[in-house]
């Protein structure tokens, strides 16, 4: 499974993008569970955030959901952090 996360906005307005492939990961079942939960609670369209808040776009298998700080679910928070930190 390939997961991509794009973070935009923020006070600095600088975009960050990363992609994570779970095929070789030993924690793939955990990540897949996170993805299911994060996608289920994401919004189909770009969400209206707070001034200077980060926006996140999560794309998995051609499907994209949106979420924005400070209103992420636990699963969304963990997933975007994982992908932005460990993805390439």
């Amino acid at each position: 499974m390939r997961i991509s996360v794009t973070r935009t906005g923020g006070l600095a307005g600088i975009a960050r993008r990363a992609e994570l492939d779970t095929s070789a990961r030993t924690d793939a079942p955990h990540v897949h569970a996170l993805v299911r939960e994060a996608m289920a609670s994401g919004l189909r369209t770009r969400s209206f955030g707070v001034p200077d808040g980060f926006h996140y776009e999560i794309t998995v298998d051609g499907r994209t959901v949106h979420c924005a700080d400070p209103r992420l679910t636990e699963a969304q928070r963990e997933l975007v952090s994982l992908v932005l930190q460990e993805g390439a």
Partner: protein
Amino acid sequence: MEPTAHGAADRTPGGRACFCTIVPPHVLDRLAEAGDAAVRDAARRSLALDARHRENRVLARRAAPPPATAGDRPERTVRDARHTEHLPGRTVRREGGAAVADGSVNRAYDGLGATFALYRAVYGRRSIDGAGLPLDATVHYGRDYDNAFWDGERMVFGDGDGEVFGDFTVPLDVIGHELTHGVTQYTAELEYRGQSGALNESLSDVFGSLVKQYALQQTADRADWLIGAGLLAPRVHGVALRSMRAPGTAYDDEVLGKDPQPATMDGYVDTRDDDGGVHINSGIPNHAFYLAATALGGNAWERAGQVWYDALTSPGLRPDADFAAFAAATVEAARARYGEGREADAVAKGWAQVGVTG
């Protein structure tokens, strides 16, 4: 197009960021913010928050004039999220309380005070809502969190990752910037997307910079006109997040990319990202203010700042105002306050120079 970063750091899960000499070009991790802390009951709270925002805005517009003494002094509370993303956090300093050992707490407290002082002393505004609203801030939000934002009720500051960004409480103009989002929320309610969003951002930069200039008692020719000076780590090639004097020149760095701000309408960026480029195209009205303020000379918070404040608080300014509408509002405000003359000319000329005609 959006600026993306390519860079030279690696981070192990839960560990400190380390910069390496050879890395894959698309490793974009070093700016990633907090790890495992998360927002509980997010959906429920966000619904409640949205409802409160609407209520606040309605109340703000309908509020009766406050008692004469309300809002003459700030009423500050600083809380500490203790590296979680749970708001509001534990109270660590209240109004009148002595300085504490934590520099972030004291900087936030002092920055709230400096912002309150500009609005009260120069524009006669009693706190951000004009009615003595208590000022709240939360510091140490998240872990290595590279941002500061206004959530509709409070200012929230991350500590930065230490590699690219430092503590977001350091630049006084960033504190003024966040609180001015509150002022805009209670006045013009400029919609946070497209040109009205870029105006919302620009007003936060303008008054953020004026908070700093007023605190330092700097005239327009001596001010740095930077937003976020002191926020970038020493290894970053850049001086700040944005420059009002020369938009597009604040940084040019292999990790951060290049400052994407245009100074004039020729460079206007059409994008869906960043709420339609609100932090990018704000360079245009920012530069118009800089041009007007430096043409007038002296203290920028006096005439130029007064005109911008009058425009921001004018009842005729619509939430979906574009650059041209705001330009017209500033020229009108200049005429209303100072008559035909230098002020209105300088303001009109500033907008014309960036390619906006009211």
